[in-house]
């Protein structure tokens, strides 16, 4: 059990709020400025994020210089709610965990902003796009820097809003509007878990601060701990697209590609992992909830990988892959103290290489006139050298090629999974093999083979403003693992209470096995897609695995049957009742305004009679309820 002990904020730490305020103000400026910022507004947005990054970096360096006990800093801002039994002060918590997130969000976020300057250069609503991006950065920073769950929830809602706005950014596409709505609805289901969890915390601890929850969790009734843990898991599932709330992420690819890279790969979707790790005190005393986290993670890592194997849309392959990789992180987070640091480690490396690959995919789409179908690609390695090379770095990182970043972070998770339970371990291992397969497929279909370009498409390398972020992210995809491998466990230990384990430089037996499985995955991928011709139309397949994968494992159908249809039915019933009983009269009267006919009067009296009847039935209903409650 760890207790959070923070030191008072001094010096640069008291400026931490600027990290959030600067992009928030920039977003507001861009939104209300009218056309004033149309020409240069995007640079304001880039500058805002760069400034936030500067502050984050400064804080990070200051923390490195401080004693390990002095590193976590609480920055109280003001007392938000103070009523009777509970008081909630809004404040920031700059600790070892949150600063890493802040660096990831502002660092990778800054690069993606820069990339977007090129990517969105010809969009008429560019200013609005950058305003939303900045809004997202501010909300995400609030989410990870908050020192209590209620303020975290504010950020949580904020990123949801930004995500909704950005998925539906190209609103003239009905599919984009529908995708935004879907993401919104499914995230609300997650929010239900979040709200209820915070409510329970307030009732049990009288406060929602991490400090109070961490301190009180040890004395918690196991049933309540499990309940809170499961509610937090529900929240995490919604935000992080984990089974059973996974279906929105694939549709979210309707948004502009930089959005997919920033929100739906590198940062927002990892908020669920952050939530679980941050709530470590609760999960440590709720083994059932922690096991549920492991299960959700395991199932999702396989489901996501499965979906990734059978999509032809390059962004959807990457989206499936994101689900799968977050599944790994959830799995690690659910394992408990042995896995927290690895979950965060993988989260960071994934942030690098997945953002790199998404932006790379964007660069390819840019070259192919926004075609996303990989069956229309091929042979792009020759015309897009930089994109190809940077993408390759991401590819090697994600499949876990030795000494690339994913190699370190994913191997740790697979090993920890084997120590937890052999079945989970095998699932994680097989997932690694499938990952290697679908990523090889993607590489081969996109960059190798003969060209299958549509007529009139002339691929070309993207401008520098897009390739420079790619190069930087590629560098981190390569070295991110080495940089953090020996350091991150000890760094995070005071914040998340993970167990620091000795890491040997030589791979263990499991490490060798992983490499073998990955090699097999690559080989199978090459066998199917490297040496054969890739058909330009997706072949009709009756193969169970392909059909399931192409249909997202029928996630939508399940949602439809379980949730959508009954809701629609109920709503329709209520609406019909309403229309016959209520709307009839008013619509009738309004329509007959000019005619003044007797019909209006007839409708009117009919209406009142119906209303009075409803009221009388209501009286009977009240009587019944009161009698029943007397009996009970």
């Amino acid at each position, binding site marked *: 059990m760890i207790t959070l002990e923070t030191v008072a904020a001094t010096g640069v730490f008291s400026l931490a709020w600027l990290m959030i305020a600067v992009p928030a103000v920039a977003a507001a400026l861009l939104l*209300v400025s*009218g056309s004033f910022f149309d020409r240069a507004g995007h640079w304001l947005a880039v500058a805002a994020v760069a400034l936030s990054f500067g502050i984050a970096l400064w804080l990070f360096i200051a923390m490195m210089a401080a004693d390990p006990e002095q590193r976590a800093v609480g920055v109280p801002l*003001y*007392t*938000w*709610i*103070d*009523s*009777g*039994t*509970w008081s909630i002060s809004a404040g920031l918590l700059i600790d070892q965990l949150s600063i890493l997130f802040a660096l990831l969000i502002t660092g990778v976020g800054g690069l993606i902003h820069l990339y977007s300057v090129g990517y969105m250069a010809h969009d008429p609503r560019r200013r609005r796009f950058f305003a939303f991006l900045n809004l997202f950065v501010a909300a995400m920073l609030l989410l990870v820097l908050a020192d209590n769950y*209620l303020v975290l929830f*504010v950020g949580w*809602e904020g990123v949801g809003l930004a995500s909704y706005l950005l998925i*539906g950014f190209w609103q003239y596409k009905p599919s984009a509007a529908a995708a935004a709505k879907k993401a*919104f*609805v499914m995230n*609300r289901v997650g*929010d*239900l878990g979040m*709200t*209820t969890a915070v*409510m329970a915390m*307030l*009732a049990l601890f009288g406060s929602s601060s991490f400090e109070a929850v961490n301190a009180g969790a040890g004395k918690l009734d196991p049933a309540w701990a499990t309940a809170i843990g499961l509610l937090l898991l529900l929240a995490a599932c919604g935000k992080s697209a984990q089974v059973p709330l996974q279906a929105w992420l694939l549709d979210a690819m309707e948004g502009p590609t930089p959005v997919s890279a920033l929100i739906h790969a590198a940062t927002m979707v990892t908020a669920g992992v952050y939530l679980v790790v941050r709530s470590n005190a609760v999960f440590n005393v709720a083994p059932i909830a922690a096991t549920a986290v492991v299960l959700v993670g395991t199932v999702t890592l396989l489901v996501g990988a499965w979906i990734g194997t059978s999509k032809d849309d390059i962004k959807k392959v990457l989206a499936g892959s994101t689900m799968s990789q977050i599944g790994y992180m959830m799995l690690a987070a659910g394992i408990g103290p042995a896995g927290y640091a690895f979950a965060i480690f993988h989260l960071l490396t994934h942030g690098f290489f997945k953002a790199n690959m998404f932006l790379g995919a964007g660069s390819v789409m840019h070259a192919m006139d926004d075609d996303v179908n990989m069956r229309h690609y091929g042979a792009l390695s020759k015309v897009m050298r930089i994109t190809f090379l940077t993408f390759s770095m991401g590819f090697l990182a994600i499949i876990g090629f030795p000494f690339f970043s994913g190699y370190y972070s994913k191997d740790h998770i697979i090993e920890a999974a084997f120590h937890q339970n052999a079945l989970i371990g095998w699932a994680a291992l097989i997932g690694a093999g499938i990952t290697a397969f679908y990523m090889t497929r993607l590489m081969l279909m996109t960059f190798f083979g003969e060209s299958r370009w549509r007529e009139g498409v002339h691929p070309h390398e993207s401008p520098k403003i897009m390739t420079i972020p790619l190069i930087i992210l590629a560098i981190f995809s390569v070295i991110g693992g080495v940089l953090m491998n020996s350091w991150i466990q000890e760094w995070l230990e005071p914040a998340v209470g993970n167990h620091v384990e000795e890491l040997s430089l030589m791979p263990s037996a499991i490490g060798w096995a992983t490499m073998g499985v990955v090699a097999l995955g690559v080989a199978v991928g090459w066998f199917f897609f490297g040496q054969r011709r890739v058909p330009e139309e997706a072949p009709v397949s009756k193969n169970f695995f392909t059909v399931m994968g192409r249909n997202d494992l029928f996630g939508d159908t399940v949602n439809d049957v379980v949730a959508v249809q009954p809701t629609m039915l*109920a*709503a329709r019933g*209520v*609406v019909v009742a*309403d229309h016959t*009983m*209520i709307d009839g*009269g*008013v619509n009738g*009267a*309004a329509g007959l*305004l*000019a005619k*003044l006919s007797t019909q*209006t009067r007839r409708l*009117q009296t009919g*209406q*009142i009679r*119906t*209303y*009075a009847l*409803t*009221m009388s039935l*209501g*009286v009977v*209903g*009240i*009587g019944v*309820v*009161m*009698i*029943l*409650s*007397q009996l*009970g």
Partner: protein
Amino acid sequence: MNQIATPTFEWMPLAPVLAVLLAACVGVVVEALVPRAYRFVSQLGVVALGLLAALGLLIVNYFAHSSGIMAMGSISLDGPTYLMWGSLLVFGLLSMMVFAERTLNNGASAFAASAASVPGSVAEAEATAARHEHTEVFPLALFSLSGMMVFVSATDLITAFVALEVMSLPLYLLSGMARRRRLLSQEAALKYFLLGALSSAFFLFGMALMYGYAGSFDYRAIDAAVLAPTYGHGLLLVGTGLMAVGLLFKIGAVPFHNWVPDVYVGSPTPVTSFMAICTKLAAVGATARFFFVALGADRWSWQPMIAVIAVLTMIVGVVLAMSQTDIKRLLAYSSVSHAGFILVAVVGATVATANDPASSVASILFYLLAYGFATVGAFAIVTMVRNSAGEAHDIDSWSGIGRSNPVIGAVFALLMLSFAGIPLTGGFIGKWEVFASAWEGGYAWLVVVAVMASLVAAYVYLKVVVRMFFAESAEGVSVAKASLLTLVPIGVGAVATLYLGLFPGPVLDLMTASSVFLR
């Protein structure tokens, strides 16, 4: 018992009500004596003077700590009374400012030139051409407001009933006076009147039974009778149920909500705003007082009933709001669902004890405050969005308003977010408070239902926001130029909504400190 006691009346403590009543009476005299040309201005002056004087007196009394059961046991001046009177006066003033708006409609108010003439008749055309107007609306609203003030503070059933009628009768009239779509308006007034009469009948019948049970109309006597019953429980139960019908009707709770959408749509928008805030506030306040003070000891009988009503109200309100295409109708159903959320706190409330100050009364009052400020702003904006035929109520015609008019759009979005209970707005804190008090009252299941309903409700409001900002502008609809009489309520509503969301502390403290009903 045959000697007549001299009635006692505490003039100064009750002066705020008297000021409003006096202003209403002066308004009637103005109507009779002042030449037509000066009536409008005079009425405005009377309203402003009366309400500001009432507010001033209220504040003076508050700092003089005057409280107690007054007017021979029929009015209780206690913490909640102060808060509710204050809110009623502020909201009344803001709504009546919108009543007086004449810039939007080329110098005419939102009220019919001649409410008595047949729609479409020559008489109507003549009255319109002569630019007549009904300045009676101001005294009517003041009478209604004074009724509301007595209603929330009444501690005996006769006073409560008289206040209920004083508050309702002017509203029936006001709702029939719309300048545009007069048939709809008159239809709404008649419906409101007939159903209101029906609900009053239930209330009165319940009162009679309650008297039969307790032998007194006094809330404290009823409480005493509940604790030491002389008659069977059945009489009390039936009485409670029937009186609940009358109160729930005014609150607009399902299944007594039928009138809400029709009347809200048909009434002139400023009147709708007045009803949506002040009537609801008064009805909720009176309900809370009656149930907590008179029936507090019998809570096990009525808690499940109110819980069921709360669930129905939230769900039906939210679900029906989803399918609305008319902004006023949407706001009407939204107000129904808000009634449900408030009832959630009424249910949980009773269990709050002296050493657990997270009282439901405080949360109810805070919720009403947040809801009231958002509502006053929202309806004021509804009056500004117009096409050639008057206010444009079709939500489709609101498309793109946010882009052509960023400030109004942003304010409306803010108010919608507050309705939806999104963090950093007053509505969010209100929902938290309400849910928390129900949770602590042992109604966790109800809180779960309420949270789900509020999540669905968010969709309703965000849909409007998205329409305003992201859809192509509709033809012929614009945000008309308004005078300060409309802009001030909008500004106050927006600022208060933000303030309550960002710095709820002082207000919550105030509410918690004065949330105990005097018995």
